[in-house]
């Protein structure tokens, strides 16, 4: 027996009208990071060294630059969703919670854009 109304069952929505979006976003970006993360870990294990020229030689090739862009995009998105849940769980008080969520999103966007700018600048050889 369900306590939900017939209309509610048909629409498949909770009182907030969404919620599965966050779940799916976390899972799908997690799948992307499974692949991109393993590639990045492999690259960091086998990169010859961490001098400036060696770093540039790793970042600049088109395939590496594209994979790095995908990595920072998925990572920023996935991390934002994760930190969002932690804030929702532990930060109490409506105003503090809202401000924390907004700051977290700004910080994640900033990091992803800053990283992407670096990758593109190196990739284009500037």
């Amino acid at each position: 027996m369900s306590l939900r109304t017939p209309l509610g069952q048909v629409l498949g929505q909770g009182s907030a009208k969404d919620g599965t979006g966050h779940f799916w976003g976390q899972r799908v970006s997690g799948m992307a990071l499974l692949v991109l993360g393993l590639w990045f870990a492999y690259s960091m294990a086998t990169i010859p060294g961490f001098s400036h020229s060696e770093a540039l030689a790793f970042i600049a090739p088109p395939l590496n630059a594209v994979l790095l862009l995908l990595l920072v995009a998925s990572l920023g998105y996935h991390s934002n969703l994760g930190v969002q849940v932690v804030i929702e769980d532990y930060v109490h008080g409506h105003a503090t919670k809202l401000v924390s969520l907004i700051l977290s999103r700004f910080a994640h966007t900033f990091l992803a854009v800053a990283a992407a700018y670096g990758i593109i600048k190196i990739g284009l050889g500037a």
Partner: protein
Amino acid sequence: MSNNGRPLSPHLSIYSWPITMTTSILHRATGLGLSVGFIVLAAWLLDAAVGAEAYSAMVSYLDTTVGRVLLVGWSFAFFFHLANGVRHFVWDVGRGFEIRQANASAWFVMILAVVSTAGFWWVRT
């Protein structure tokens, strides 16, 4: 209120900490740690683009004892979060929920994370 000496449940003296609790807490802790690591990754990529001076300054922070400990920590956090994330995918399709399965997968993930971290640094150094 009298309870005639009957045991309270669950009581601290008989409570046994489940391994699945450890992996659950570690999943969130490593996730947060990796979010902090994202700052370092972004700084590495941006400083590499800015120039040799900014880059060396950034890398010199990581080439310290504290920096190395953090890097080992991030590598463990990465492998643990990744392996336990796959464990979550298995749960998402409705499998592995039996207590014995969950305990076994928890130990598997813990061991895999430690071995992967050791393997990563063995290849790296």
